[in-house]
């Protein structure tokens, strides 16, 4: 169990596989939240990654924030917090 986030240890998600060194992994995480923020803006949601702590935070601007272990979980939370689903095919 991680004492910072409370998640039990898990296999890395496939989306975390792109980097080998800690620096690369951190760069991937930060540019990922930057992209998520762009994509989630129309839904009124925001994404945040602390960097020092695992997980992606999804918040809805009304005080609700969810800490998600993987990107897959983040998409679930996006649906719950926004009340609609995010369809990548509708991105313009």
């Amino acid at each position, binding site marked *: 169990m991680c004492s910072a986030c409370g998640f039990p240890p*898990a*296999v*890395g998600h*496939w*989306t975390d*596989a*792109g*980097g*080998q060194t800690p620096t*690369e992994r951190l*760069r*991937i995480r930060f*540019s*990922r939240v930057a*992209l*998520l923020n*762009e*994509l989630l803006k129309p839904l009124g949601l925001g994404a945040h990654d602390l960097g020092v702590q695992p997980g992606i935070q999804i918040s809805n601007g009304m005080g609700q924030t969810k800490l998600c272990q993987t*990107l*897959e979980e983040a*998409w*679930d939370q996006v649906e719950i917090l926004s009340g609609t*689903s*995010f*369809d*990548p*095919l*509708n*991105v*313009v």
Partner: protein
Amino acid sequence: MSSEENRLRLTILGGFLGAGKSTWLRHQLFAETYDQPHVIVNEVAPHAVDDTLLAGARCLDVLAGGCVCCDQKEQMIELLHSICNDRSRMQDVPQTRQLVFEMSGVADPGQVLTAIQNDPILNRHILLEEIIVVVDALHGLEQVRTEPLSRCQIEAADQILITKTDCCDAQTLETLLATLKQLNPASECRASVFGVEEPLPDASSAQPVPLPDLDGQTEEPLSSVSLNLDESGTDVNTWVGFSVWLSAMLHTHGNHMVRVKGVVRTPGGRLLLQSVRKVMQAPEILPDLPLGGERSSDNTVVLIGRGLNHERIHNSLHHVMTKTAN
């Protein structure tokens, strides 16, 4: 991630009841196609028969009395755990690196793979190499027409093996080939008689048989979309953009996707991505190519699914990639 190469390679052998799975496997064991494999046989009948045919395996385990994709799932996971456990404990003894899993005729390979991928231990120890699905040339056409399960199996296949080709006429075989190609355009078809490879006729002019709806499911044939990431570069942004896009696609449209396959170049190495339905396998890191030896198939990912709109998919990926670059 450096331990990836040590994972057990898993070959799943599926196919409808009586398609000839054991016969094929028996010959492969005799011909030593696999390097001292550990074989697991699953049978629906309470008394296993096929295992007696399969001498020549380094190790053989039998799961009898149920199908591994439903009622025997727990036993399967338990057995795989113990195999992985033994393998980790006895590291000084030479170990097999190949696992061949012959499933019962009523099992869905996709379900088994999902169960393995969702298990935190097996996920680290087992790497899917390929799904081979055996189709009987005599009864195959009838099976894909009437059995939803038979279609499920064929759609999950990387390689389709047509058996008993010596017992049917050329026209039936060509129609079967065309039908299989329509069901799963990305798979590779081969023919075999008693495990020995046979040439396949050219079926480019043959017409597939019409496939009726089963259980009210919309049985739109599969189509595939090739995505080329080359133009977007090979840096962190390519991987971030693509992985975010694909994970969202699998989340929203996963039920229409049957397979995703491809190699993506990332800062961490060349990653082999493979998914069956919604489940993405932990990517395998492929060895780097020598300088100048770039593979044209790198950074190309193929999506296979139902009702895929090529234009919308290409546009949406392009938009997401552009947002990443900014």
